[in-house]
């Protein structure tokens, strides 16, 4: 039996197709989110990867910011529950999830069965999210994919103290004007993202194992900054951008079982 999870985010659309609730047969990330061709593109690519078609899918669960805009789903489930489900599937010992996506950051505490015990999300502010890194990368004349390479070569993180994305951008510009090395500034930007995400996690209790998911987990610089600040080991989820979609596909499997 095949089930599907689709995570329609603000910055990207992710699809995971699962066989019998166990094996990932397709996982695709389209780099555009809700309101674009992203969801359709991700669906088509996932079908191409798996050689399956819509008729083969028993159930579909949608999650993410655009979950209600995706009409072909059997059910919508919040990204909080889906991330918890996806991470627990990959790492049953995970107790804390730090998920940083395109426009939100969340810290989720899990119990031993993978249920959500508590969660905290950012408020109406994009500081400490993927958007923050996008803005900084543009000012620093690079792309988000290259940020980690730069910060690896940093001597020390430059001070980026503003929480606000707009003010932090001005700070980066003034650091550049002062002649600060791009590597150090980028390490400072990563440190700033880590602090913001950890501020959410610290509202609860940070328990190990800690797993990071979401697109920003692909940036080794941010992962290192979080590990440095917590003094704890951070595990990056496998294919971290698709964790929400994986969780949705797992929920879809549970739904499908109910019908059989």
């Amino acid at each position, binding site marked *: 039996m095949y089930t599907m999870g689709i995570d329609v985010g603000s910055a990207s659309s992710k699809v995971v197709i699962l066989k019998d609730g166990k094996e990932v047969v397709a996982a695709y990330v389209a780099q555009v989110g809700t309101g674009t061709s992203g969801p359709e593109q991700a669906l088509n690519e996932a079908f191409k990867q798996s050689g399956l078609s819509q008729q083969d899918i028993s159930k579909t669960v949608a999650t993410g*910011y655009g979950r209600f805009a995706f009409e072909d789903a059997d059910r919508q489930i919040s990204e909080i*529950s889906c991330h918890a489900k996806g991470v627990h599937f990959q790492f049953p010992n995970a107790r804390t999830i730090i998920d940083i996506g395109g426009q939100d950051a969340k810290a989720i505490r899990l119990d031993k069965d993978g249920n959500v015990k508590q969660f905290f999300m950012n408020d109406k502010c994009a500081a400490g999210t993927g958007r923050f890194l996008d803005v900084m990368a543009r000012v620093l004349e690079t792309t988000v994919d290259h940020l980690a390479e730069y910060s690896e070569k940093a001597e020390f993180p430059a001070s980026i103290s503003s929480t606000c994305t707009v003010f932090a951008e001005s700070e980066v510009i003034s650091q550049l004007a002062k002649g600060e090395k791009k590597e150090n500034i980028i390490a400072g930007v990563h440190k700033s993202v880590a602090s913001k995400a950890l501020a959410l996690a610290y509202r609860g209790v940070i328990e190990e194992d800690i797993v990071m998911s979401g697109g920003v987990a692909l940036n080794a610089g941010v992962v290192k900054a979080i590990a440095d600040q917590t003094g704890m080991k951070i595990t990056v989820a496998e294919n971290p951008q698709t964790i929400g979609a994986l969780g949705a596909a797992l929920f879809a499997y549970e739904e499908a079982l109910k019908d059989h």
Partner: protein
Amino acid sequence: MNQTEGMNSKQMLGHYINKSFQDAREAKANGKLVCWSSSVAPDEFCRAMDIEILYPENMAAAVGAKKGAPDMLKIAEQKGYNVDICSYARVNLGYFELLKEQALTGKTPEALENYVGEPAVLPDVVITSTNLCGTLLKWFENIAAELNIPCIVIDVPFNYERPMPQRMVNYVKGQFEYAIKQLEELCGRPFDYDKFLEVQKQSQRTVAQWDKIASMTSLKPSPFNGFDFFNYMALIVSYRATAGAEETFAKCVEELEEMVKNGQSAFGENEKHRIAWEGIAVWPALGLTFKTFKNMDTLMTGSGYPDIWSLRYTPGDMESMARGYSNVYTNINLEERTKAVEKIMENAKCDGIVYHNNRSCKLMSMVNVDIAEAVQKNNDKPFVVFDGDQTDPNNFSAAQFETRAQALGEMMDAKQAKGGK
């Protein structure tokens, strides 16, 4: 004939709210005094002296619910009030500017013509109390200073110590006595202690009916939809010391009892989960917040906010009244507040709780996380915190609210599936 004969409680609610404004307008036209009061200031003193009362916080909430807040917020901000100030204050200070301009020029500003709230009149006196927040003090002082009218302040110290020490009871009683003196000077006649006692008795009869409504939510399924607290609240705040409020709440209790008798309830078969709502309502999104939970078959049955006006004391006993106005929920220490939230959840049989992190009300919001964790430690019920605002729609995001509400529903589902409801 009784004007409210044949009306249901919601119609009576509308009738008496309109009447409170009408009474104030008539008083003003006839040269009688009108007071603007903060929502938990003791209204008994003014009522005893036949002073009509209007409530700026209520006015702001009503304008917010009617989507009229942005126009008033803009005027207050143009006047220089910072966007970080409480949005009730900004909405009311914006409206106040318009009333003042009208009084000074004799012309009605366009924004006042388009005002969506019930028309108010400028005050001759203001009364506020520190049992709620410090913002109210500055807000009412500003109004008094701009109009050059008396500002009666009932200073109520924060209750760090429990039970409330006698020295604090004496202090608050002293505040009451000074307020009486100020009113005697303003009215030019001695304080009417006989009427005061009658007003106190009426106030307690009203509160008893208000508490009865709240007690109905302990029934499962509940006949009362907790979001209706936010509607009926207008009367317990502004009309507490009048028979109209008592009659309205008694009617509401009668309707609920009738529903129970007929086997009816607010959501019928669809009452899947029950939640508590901690904090002030999001007035501009009252419908959205209600519907989000309704679509999840989740009924709000408990809230600490309407419970603030369960102001109980013994009529004729000033010390008891001092205790009543001091022990309000916003003026007690964290431990007591945590217990109060737990009690509300227990009485209303809630499966989870939503905390409103309200940009406007730092006083009620800054303790949310601590209370949430302490309550969860004791009752093991899931909670969510969302960011919003009581009247400034700029500080609320519907999509973010829906995601958090849905996650709360899923956490309650998971707990129910495990048999741990």
